[in-house]
């Protein structure tokens, strides 16, 4: 793996760090398994990309993307709170509806089922090109990293606030929170909106760094998010709220580096006792990635247990 490949993986990891923080809010804080993100990530990318193509200022495009994705989260919350649909099912319903919505948004650009920024399009990142004499491949991860750090800080301050504490109580014990006079429904709305807003921001950064996304672009977002949260939790065991949120972001970067290693694989063959085992990056990529992630999750605990023996 060379420096370009490495910074590329870090950049993508940082983009998905926002997804990881969003998933942390819904999955861990609110205890709401939210599959909406598989759709709202692409919604963020599509809204931001189409707005930029229409000549809207990239920063305003990002705000629009965040609002659109937050709206998707609110729909899921509404299906759950107002209509009493099971949380997992509510999010699946929104996710599948978003497939069509995303096609519509992307279709605003020449009726295409993908959104592709033109050659040398103006994004929020382009004004920073050449800053400190750094090459573009270094500027992009720095830009995304700065936004991630700001998001980590803001989410941390939010979770420490009174509303944030009420939200945490809601996720830990809904009935107890209600008994304490917390209006839990409102907090689910807020949490789901906030979570998907972060995911949409991730999508908006994705389109601006990658340049394109298509209808399959959001598939697996929830898996990446959950993997990042859980890798972060298992590697950085801490009760400090700021460090927990930061570990979600680091987990995401680490996950991408691991996947990039799996991509480097090519064809690997082993012969064990006359039996030839052949791994091929093309077909076995997901398997190799899964095995590497399992190793990350299991090894720290395993090594820790060894020490205590």
């Amino acid at each position, binding site marked *: 793996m*060379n420096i*370009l*490949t490495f910074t*590329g*993986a870090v950049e*993508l990891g940082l983009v998905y760090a926002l997804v990881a923080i969003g998933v942390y809010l819904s999955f861990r804080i609110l205890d709401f398994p939210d599959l909406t993100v598989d759709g709202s990530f692409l919604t963020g990318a599509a809204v931001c990309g189409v707005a930029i193509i229409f000549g809207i200022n990239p920063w305003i495009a990002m705000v629009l993307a965040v609002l659109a994705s937050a709206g998707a989260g609110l729909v899921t919350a509404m299906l759950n709170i107002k209509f009493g649909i099971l949380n997992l099912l509510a999010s699946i319903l929104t996710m599948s509806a978003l*497939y069509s919505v995303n*096609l519509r948004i992307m279709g605003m650009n020449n*009726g*295409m*089922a*993908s959104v*592709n*920024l033109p*050659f040398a399009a103006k994004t929020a990142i382009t004004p920073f090109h050449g800053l400190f004499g750094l090459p*573009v*491949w270094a500027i992009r991860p720095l830009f995304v990293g700065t936004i991630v750090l700001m998001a980590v800080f803001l989410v941390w301050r939010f979770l420490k606030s009174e509303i944030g504490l009420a939200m945490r109580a809601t996720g830990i014990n809904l009935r107890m929170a209600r008994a304490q006079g917390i209006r839990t429904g409102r907090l689910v709305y807020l949490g789901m909106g906030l979570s998907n807003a972060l995911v949409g921001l991730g999508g908006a950064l*994705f389109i601006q760094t*990658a*340049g*394109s*996304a*298509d*209808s*399959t*672009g*959001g*598939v*697996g*977002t929830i898996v990446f998010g959950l993997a990042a949260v859980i890798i972060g939790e298992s590697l950085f065991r801490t009760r400090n709220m700021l460090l927990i949120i930061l570990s979600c972001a680091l987990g995401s970067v680490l996950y*991408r580096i691991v*996947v*990039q290693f799996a*991509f*480097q694989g*090519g064809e690997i063959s082993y012969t064990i006792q006359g039996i030839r085992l052949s791994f091929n*990056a*093309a*077909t076995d*990529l*997901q398997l190799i990635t899964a095995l590497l992630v399992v190793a990350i999750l299991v090894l720290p605990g395993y090594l820790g247990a060894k020490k205590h023996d």
Partner: protein
Amino acid sequence: MRRFLISALAGFALGSSAVAAEQVKVALTQIVAHPALDAVRKGVEDALAQAGYRQGENLKYTYLSAQGNISTATQIARQFAGNQPDVIVAIATPSAQTMLSATQDIPIVFSAVSDPVEAGLVKSLDRPGGNVTGVSDRSPVAGHLKLLREIKPDIRKLGYLYNAAEANSVSTLKLLQTLAAEQGIEIVPSAAARSSEVQMATRALIGKVDMIYVPTDNTIIAVLEGASNAAAESQTPLFTADPSSIGRGPFAAQGISYYDAGVETGRLAVRILNGEKPADIAVVTPPARDVFIDLRAAKAMGVDIPQSVLDRATRIIKE
């Protein structure tokens, strides 16, 4: 009022049946909405219009996309088989295959299928035999290798970026490997399972190859900007077999035009509407004459285009 309603209903029923008697029914399905496949559909629609078929007048045209879902494709195939249209157009291999398993008597015209024989759609390209014929988009791989060697004579390792789940890309890879081996070029494949992985798959080739080849792969082509950006960062030239993608980042492209393939497909459908049997119509493979060059991308990727190539290029995007 009541009398008015009855007469209106009667008039509507008579009117619609009168029109229906003259209408031909064409049903079109494609596996997913996607720029290249949409271009094929546009070509089919234009060819039908050129032949004088107008929607609502003498044509009842239905279009359904399977949205990338094979079980939806199966459902569409059953619905089309039940509706008994005069001809069915199926775009891309999975749509054609599911359509064929749903009906063995309604004529099917496929399009954007690389290898119709291997896909089990026809017995042979010259005499399909069954209720199926169509347009193959098999890439002129030998011509591509010749062009790439002309541009970069010292090429030893060629990266191949694709989605291993797309049958067309896998069969092109096999063909490319065979042809390249004869010329002492090694093919280094790198696969992405979905569009969000394309950048990573491209970066996995960086430093390992002299050039990157992108086949007419739905997943890669849909997000070609991402792949091109990643390639340009490391000055690795990226070529594509999809000419409609020129201007989106690759330095050069050569292949069949999907719109033209769609027009050919539409013409086959018209021949069938005029009474010909699919079994007797040979599969059409449109020629790939055009060479497209993007000098902006060539500069970004650090590749010099020889004058001989520029001289025969059909379209050049200037710096």
